[in-house]
């Protein structure tokens, strides 16, 4: 058995599987897991004087496969750098890397790098198109972060006598707003939702009048491509349309006089 694998086995036990992947490359199967349950594999490349322990970009590849469109934004880069700082590893050319000066460091390096892989893979929670959080919860988090006071699921009487429920009522220094969030994964539902929303805004039109007049905002979750132009045009007849893919513009509308 390879000397390093033997050392790893003595120090870490049977939870870590170690073997030659190819010439000069060891594969170490750790008990760490990415958020979907796939195990974290690390690789040791031995060179003259030192060795490199790395994931060969597998953590970023795992993240890519969750959305098909991974972007290392400056915020995500800061999060990765923070993880690397804590764990004492590097982020180099898309790979998490640790340098070993001696074989005695192998166990410690494997644990630190494995933990770094897991923590970086938790960037998955910063992705907006994931099923753990609903769009309504995302909007709620957004309003919290931006310091916009709100009530959730507000029930209001329409002129017809029917009661309607809006998703959010917000109040900023210049403006109060009623917000209806439209989110769906299906084109046929998108059409039905926009028609129902138009009916709602028409029936609630008395809330646009008087001293405490409200702004009506239809917030469309256009991060999913199911909306047609006619859906937007329909609700524009009775409300201001905001797009969830442009949250800064949504905030501007909430704060506008």
């Amino acid at each position, binding site marked *: 058995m390879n000397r390093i694998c033997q050392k790893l086995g003595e120090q870490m036990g049977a939870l870590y599987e170690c073997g030659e992947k190819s010439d000069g490359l060891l594969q170490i199967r750790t008990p760490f*897991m990415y958020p979907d349950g*796939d195990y974290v*594999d690390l690789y040791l490349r031995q060179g*003259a004087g030192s060795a490199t322990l790395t994931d060969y970009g597998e953590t970023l*590849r795992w993240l*890519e496969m969750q*959305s098909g*469109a991974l972007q290392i934004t400056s915020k995500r880069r800061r999060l990765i750098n923070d993880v690397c700082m804590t764990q004492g590893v590097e982020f180099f050319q898309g790979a998490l890397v640790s340098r070993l000066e001696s074989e005695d460091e192998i166990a410690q390096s494997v644990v630190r790098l494995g933990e770094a892989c897991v923590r970086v893979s938790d960037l998955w929670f910063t992705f907006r198109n994931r099923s753990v959080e609903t769009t309504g919860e995302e909007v709620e988090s957004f309003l919290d972060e931006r310091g916009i006071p709100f009530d959730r699921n507000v029930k209001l009487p329409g002129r017809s006598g029917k009661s309607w429920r809006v998703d959010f009522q917000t109040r900023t220094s210049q403006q109060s707003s009623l917000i209806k969030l439209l989110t769906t994964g299906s084109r046929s539902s998108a059409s039905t939702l926009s028609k129902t929303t138009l009916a709602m805004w028409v029936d609630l039109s008395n809330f646009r009048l008087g001293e405490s007049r409200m702004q009506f905002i239809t917030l469309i979750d256009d991060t999913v491509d199911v909306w047609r132009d006619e859906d937007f045009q329909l609700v524009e007849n009775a409300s201001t349309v905001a797009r969830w893919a442009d949250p800064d513009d949504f905030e501007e509308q909430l704060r506008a006089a």
Partner: protein
Amino acid sequence: MTLSESDFEEILGDVTKTIHGDLEWSESDNHVSWLKFRADIDSEDGYPLSVAGSYNPIVEKVSFALIYGGVGRVYALDLGVKHHNPTCENIGDTHKHRWTDCYRDKLAYEPDDITATVAEPVAVWEQFCDEALIDHDGTLAPPPALQTEIFE
């Protein structure tokens, strides 16, 4: 938004899912050790579906995933990596993730319809499309050669 298991099964069983045109692997500024591609999937019901593929030739791993807009990965094939199910079984180096109500995409199984190896990513892609009932009316190009070693 969320996706039910029955909706997922309906999507997977939809035979009108189609990818048009040829696909090519590309590198990225973010990384140098693996290749990827992404493509939209058309269907009669207009599901917001796309497919992503990635291939790491240095460590011999390849993955393909069906991604549902607003939800994330709902179905995937991984070669070269082991998996631990939330029900506590360990699954081997070739496994598929499949969406369920209880575990989302964390539950995997070993398929018997993937016979191609990591060294044949194009053949793996074709077998992936077969079970997912995706009609790809073009071809996936073989992966280009990458810089084989980034660490001395």
